[in-house]
C-alpha cells in the first residue's frame, strides 16, 4: 500500500492507461508544457511526447468536438477541462453530440471519451467558477458521471472510465488534489456504478460524495457518533449509474435517509435519490428524507456568504437529528 495524493493517483491512472493503450491521448488547456493547471498531468509530456499530450487553445467547444470526432473513429481521448465550469461552453458538444451519438446513429458510432477536470467550489472564486454541475450531466441519457472522493477511488475509477466505451463525465475536486490516502499496489480498477459503505450504522443512512463527503459529512458523522447516533455512511462514487441497491438496503435497515451534496437543491442528484427511495422503500421510511444542499443562489464571492451558502457540519448534524426526531 502506497500513500499518494489524488493528483498522483489520477496521474498514475492516465500514465498506466496510455502505456497500456496507444489509442489513449490527453488534450486540454495547459496539460502539456505547463504540466497541467493543477499539475495532474505532470511529467506526461516528457514521457509520451506532444503527439499524445496536447495543449489546446482556449476553445472548449472546439477541442471537446475534436475529442468526440476522434473517439467516433477509434481513438480514446481524455479531454481535460481546466474546470467543469468551462465545460458549459462545450455543453452542446457533450449533450448533443457525445451523449446522443450512439443512439442517434442507431448504433453505428459510439464515443469512448473521458471528459475530466475539477468541479465544485474552491474559495472566493465567485459564481461562475464555483459550480457543482453533476446533476445537469447526470440528467442526460448516454452519459455516465463519476465522482471519486479519495486517491484509491480516483485511480481505480479513472482507469475504468478510460476503458469504458461511453462518454464519461469524471468530476474531481479542485481543493482535494493534494489529499493523500492509501492505494493498492499494482494494477487495479474499480467498477462504475458500485458504491461503498464507508461506515456501518443502524440509526440513519447518509449518502454523500466527493469533497462535501470528506470535508463536511465525514466530520459531522464523527460528531454524531459521539452523541450516540449511529450513521451508515455511503459514498456512491458513481452518480450515474447510481448503486441503488446499496442505498435501498441501507434505508431498509435504518429507516431514515439524509443526502448531503454540494449542488443546488432544485432537480439535484439528491432529489433523484429521494424519488427512487420513496418508490422502492416507502414502507421502510420512518421519517421524511432530509437533504443538505447549497442554497439556491449563485455562490457569492465574500467569504462569509460563501460559507453560509455551502453545506456545513452543523447543517448536516441538524438534518440527521431531524430525521431522527431528536429536534
Amino acid at each position, binding site marked *: 500500500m502506497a500513500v499518494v495524493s489524488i493528483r498522483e493517483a489520477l496521474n498514475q491512472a492516465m500514465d498506466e492507461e496510455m502505456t497500456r493503450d496507444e489509442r489513449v491521448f490527453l488534450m486540454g488547456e495547459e496539460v502539456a508544457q505547463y504540466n497541467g493547471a493543477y499539475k495532474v498531468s505532470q511529467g506526461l509530456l516528457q514521457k509520451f511526447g506532444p503527439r499524445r499530450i496536447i495543449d*489546446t487553445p482556449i476553445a472548449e467547444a472546439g477541442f471537446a468536438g475534436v475529442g468526440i*470526432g476522434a473517439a467516433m473513429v477509434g481513438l480514446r481521448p481524455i479531454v481535460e477541462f481546466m474546470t467543469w465550469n468551462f465545460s458549459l461552453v462545450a455543453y452542446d458538444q457533450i449533450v*448533443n453530440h457525445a451523449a446522443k451519438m450512439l443512439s442517434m446513429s442507431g448504433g453505428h458510432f459510439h464515443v469512448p471519451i473521458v471528459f475530466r477536470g475539477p468541479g465544485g467550489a474552491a474559495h472566493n472564486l465567485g459564481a461562475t467558477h464555483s459550480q457543482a454541475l453533476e446533476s445537469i450531466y447526470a440528467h442526460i441519457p448516454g452519459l455516465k458521471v463519476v465522482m471519486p472522493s479519495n486517491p484509491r477511488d480516483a485511480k481505480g475509477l479513472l482507469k475504468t472510465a478510460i476503458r469504458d466505451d461511453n462518454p464519461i463525465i469524471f468530476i474531481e475536486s479542485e481543493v482535494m488534489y493534494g489529499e493523500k490516502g492509501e492505494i493498492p499496489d499494482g494494477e487495479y480498477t474499480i467498477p462504475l456504478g458500485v458504491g461503498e459503505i464507508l461506515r456501518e450504522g443502524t440509526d440513519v443512512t447518509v449518502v454523500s460524495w466527493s469533497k462535501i463527503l470528506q470535508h463536511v459529512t465525514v466530520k459531522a458523522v464523527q460528531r454524531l457518533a459521539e452523541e450516540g447516533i449511529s450513521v451508515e455512511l455511503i459514498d456512491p462514487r458513481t452518480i450515474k449509474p447510481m448503486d441503488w441497491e446499496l442505498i435501498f438496503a441501507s434505508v431498509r435497515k435504518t429507516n431514515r435517509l439524509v443526502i448531503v451534496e454540494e449542488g443546488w437543491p432544485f432537480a439535484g442528484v439528491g432529489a433523484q435519490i429521494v424519488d427512487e427511495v420513496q418508490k422502492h422503500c416507502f414502507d421502510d421510511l420512518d421519517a421524511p428524507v432530509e437533504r443538505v444542499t447549497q442554497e439556491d443562489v449563485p455562490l457569492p464571492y465574500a467569504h462569509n456568504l460563501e460559507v453560509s451558502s455551502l453545506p456545513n457540519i452543523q447543517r448536516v448534524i441538524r438534518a440527521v437529528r431531524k430525521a431522527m426526531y431528536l429536534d
Partner: protein
Amino acid sequence: MRRQLLSQHLVHVLMNNSAIGSAPSKPTRDPGLPPDTLLKWYDEMLLIRRFEEKSAQLYGMGKIGGFCHLYNGQEAVSTGSLGAINPEDYVITAYRDHGLAISKGVDPRAILAELLGKHTGTTKGKGGSMHIFDREKNFLGGHAIVGGHIPIAAGVAFASKYRGEKRVCLCFIGDGATNIGTFHESLNLAALWKLPVIYIIENNKYGMGTAVARASAVEELHQKAAAYDMRNEVVESGYDVLAVHKAVKAAVDHARATYEPSLLEIQTFRYRGHSMSDPVSGHYRTKEEVETQKKLDPLVVFAESLKRDGLASDEYFENAEKRIKAVVDECVEFAENSPEPPADELWKDVYFERGGF
C-alpha cells in the same frame, strides 16, 4: 458588392445560353476522368434529384414527419466533391444530408426507410432525415445542431493523422454556419494542428430565410480562412459538377500531401424551401430569382456537357430516367414494406456495452 459580382457571373453565363456549359462555365474536365465515371456521376445526381422529389411527395402524404431538408439544386456539390475522395475517406455534414449520403454510397433504400421511421432505416428509425449515418461507408452523419459537427470533423481528421493515415475528412457546412463559434474554433484548430480536413461551405445564399449579406460581415465566405492562414478557394459555378470536382480534388491532394486543411466555398442554390415546411420563395427571395437560378440546373448543365463531348445521347438520358425511376420505386417499396422499430428498440444503443472495436 458581392451580389453584383454574382449577378454578373450569372448574366454572363445566361447570355451564352445557346451554349450552356461553355465559357466561362466551361467544365474544365480532368482528362483523367473516364467517361464511365462521368456517366455514373450523372446517374447519381439524377438519383438524388428524383429521390428528393419522392421524399417531398411522401412528406406531403404524411409518411415523413418532422424536419426534412431537401437537396434539389445542390446535386453537383455532393457528386463533384465525393467524386474526389476514396471510400475510406470520411464525410460529415449537417442536416441537409440525403444527397451526400447517396453520393457516399449509403443504400438509398435504407435512407428512405429512415425517413419513414422504419427499423430497416440507416439508424433503425432513431435518427430520421437529419441524422443519416453509415459506419461501413465512413459517412459520419447527418448533424442537426448548426455548427455542432464542425469540430467533430477536425477530430476525425486528427485521428487520421494520429494514426499516420492518409484518409481525409470532408466536412460540409451551410453558409449560415460560418457565423457560429465552433466554425472559427475548428478552423483555428485544424490550421494550427494541420489536420487533413476539407471544410466545404455549400453557399446556397440563404441561412433558412436570411441572406448571406444580412448574416455575415464578410460576404466572400472562403475569405474567413484568411484569419487562420488556411488554404481556401471559391467555386462560383457550383452548378458544374466538374468545377466542383476539380476544386475539391486539389484540396484533397493537398491534404494528403501535407495534412493541411482547406476551406472551400461552393456557390450553389436550393430549389426548395429551407425545410419541407418552408416556402420556396417569399419575403426573403423572389420567385424570379429561383427561376433564374434554375436555368443553371446542375443536371441540365452536365447533360449538355456530356452530349457536347459525345459521351451521351438523348437516348441515354431517357434510359437514365427509367433506370433511376426504378431505383426510387424500389426504395419506396422497400421503405413502405419495412416494419417499424420494435418497442424494445427504445432502450437499445443508449449505452455501448459490447467492448471497443
